[in-house]
């Protein structure tokens, strides 16, 4: 594959995109997991699906949309979905998790309507659902790189605010942080990262890259910065192992990346057990 990467542009695209999302997905994932919002990633990924489906349908039926990268509309839907979740969470103050199934089923519902309108599944859609090594275009790569730069700078700039808000929201508010605005920025970042990651891991498995590496990191890390570091390390390992095996075995990378993440997770759990037993 190393040789092939220098030969084929599509492999370069897939590999570079993989390396990028291997950083940003676990990075945001660390905040998502500690805030107990793991399922929000799932809800938003399904909203992204409806955006992709809408784009695929419109590109068939409306000339204006022909040639538009579906990622744009997926991203737009995802961001709108994140705003809806925020709104719903304030409406159902005591049942905040209710926002997740509402948005999730809404996303799938709209997605299914557009898929049927566009005359069912095609290979394009399949690659969006489960990820693809061959479908990542240069366009996609640039867009994802843009998202990564925005997300990385925001997390670095707002790190201490995001940390405090994740650890203890009430204390954050009491010390005068603009909690609502920060939360909104965070949700929009999550939506963007989901749209970016979808090309490689696929809509159905996007959330795994945000949660599994973090779950593994939490077993062995000391402190939050270390958790982020190990999450990204595990995320990258899973992406690289997953892409290689997907390429050689001709499999959808979504599946191989998730299986690699789970293997890493098991390894981390075993390592922790061994450490405890040795003490």
């Amino acid at each position, binding site marked *: 594959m190393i040789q092939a990467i220098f030969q084929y542009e599509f492999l370069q695209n897939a590999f570079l995109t993989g390396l990028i999302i291997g950083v940003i997905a676990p990075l945001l994932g660390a905040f998502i997991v*500690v805030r*107990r919002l793991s399922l929000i990633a799932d809800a938003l990924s399904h909203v992204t699906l409806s955006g992709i489906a809408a784009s695929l349908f419109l590109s068939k039926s409306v000339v204006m949309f022909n040639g538009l990268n579906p990622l744009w509309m997926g991203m737009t839907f995802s961001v709108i979905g994140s705003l809806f979740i925020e709104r719903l969470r304030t409406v159902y103050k005591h049942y905040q998790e209710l926002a997740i199934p509402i948005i999730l089923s809404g996303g799938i519902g709209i997605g299914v309507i557009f898929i049927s309108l566009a005359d069912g599944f095609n290979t394009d859609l399949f690659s969006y659902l489960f990820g693809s090594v061959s479908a990542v275009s240069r366009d996609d790569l640039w867009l994802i790189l843009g998202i990564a730069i925005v997300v990385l700078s925001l997390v670095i*700039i707002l*790190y*201490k*605010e995001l*940390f*405090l808000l994740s*650890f*203890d929201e*009430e*204390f*954050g*508010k*009491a*010390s*005068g*942080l603009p909690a609502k605005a920060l939360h909104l920025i965070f949700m929009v970042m999550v939506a963007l990262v989901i749209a970016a990651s979808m090309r490689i891991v696929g809509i159905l498995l996007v959330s795994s890259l945000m949660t599994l590496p973090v779950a593994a*990191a*939490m077993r062995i*890390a*000391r*402190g*939050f*910065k*270390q*958790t982020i570091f190990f999450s990204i390390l595990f995320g990258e390992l899973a992406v690289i192992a997953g892409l290689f095996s997907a390429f050689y075995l001709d499999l959808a990378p979504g599946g191989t990346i998730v299986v690699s993440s789970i293997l890493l997770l098991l390894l981390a759990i075993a390592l922790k057990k061994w450490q405890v037993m040795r003490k």
Partner: protein
Amino acid sequence: MVSGKSNVLLSVWKCVYSVVVKSEPFLFERDVSMASSNIIELKNVNYRYDRDFVLTNINLAIPQGAFLGIVGPNGSGKSTLLKIILGLLKPREGKVVLFDQAQAKFREWERIGYVSQKANAFNTGFPATVYEVVASGLTKKTGLFHMIGKKRRPQIEKAIKAVSMENFMDRNIGELSGGQQQRVFIARAIVSEPDILILDEPTVGVDSKNVQTFYDMLDHLNKKLGITLVLVTHDIGTITNKVTHVACLNNTLHFHGSTADFEQVKDQELSQFYGHDVQRLHHDHAHEGSL
């Protein structure tokens, strides 16, 4: 058995209040006149969540250097009162003055340290070290677009030492005992060097043998570091010999001035109704933490 004790405790409360309400020996308005040395002032504050008022006509002035204990049974509005002071809730009526500024204009929130009741039941699995948690207390003070860098390290370590947790600096917060966690949260609250520290039921979840050390530490903060303390608790017995001022809250506030004044009222009443065993019973109860 436990609930029986709860009932006794509640009755004790009711009786203390009845005396205070009926006789009203200490007019609180007297203290309001010394406004210049007061860090926090509440004037005629009312608050209701839905229909019933949780707080009515609250007048409170906290002088600099005081150690004020606010005691009251469950549902008396203790946490609501604190949330109003901290700006988490807006009073329906009345005025809140912080450091001689109207609350709406107040921006120096780092001057007010806060240790919430929830800290006792926080997300224990959170992967953060003691150092990271304490450093997060500097978030507001450091300001947007700035990082809490190495420059701040001495300040953070000082706060950790002030609560004697320096040997646990790199431990994850979830690995500590309830009492140790509470110390860390106090360090987080004092790291920004606030003028006042507000504690909401800080000894819940701290085992009884560590409660004394905990109060010793508060005493140190109050007397040596000059931090004004406000401690809210249902545990009347343990705090009266620690604090300098006492206020009773049961939807309205009854201020007792100095602790000595309060002791007089309390002892008379308690012994009259429940005999000599009340104090002990109360202590046992408090340490079980069953309220």
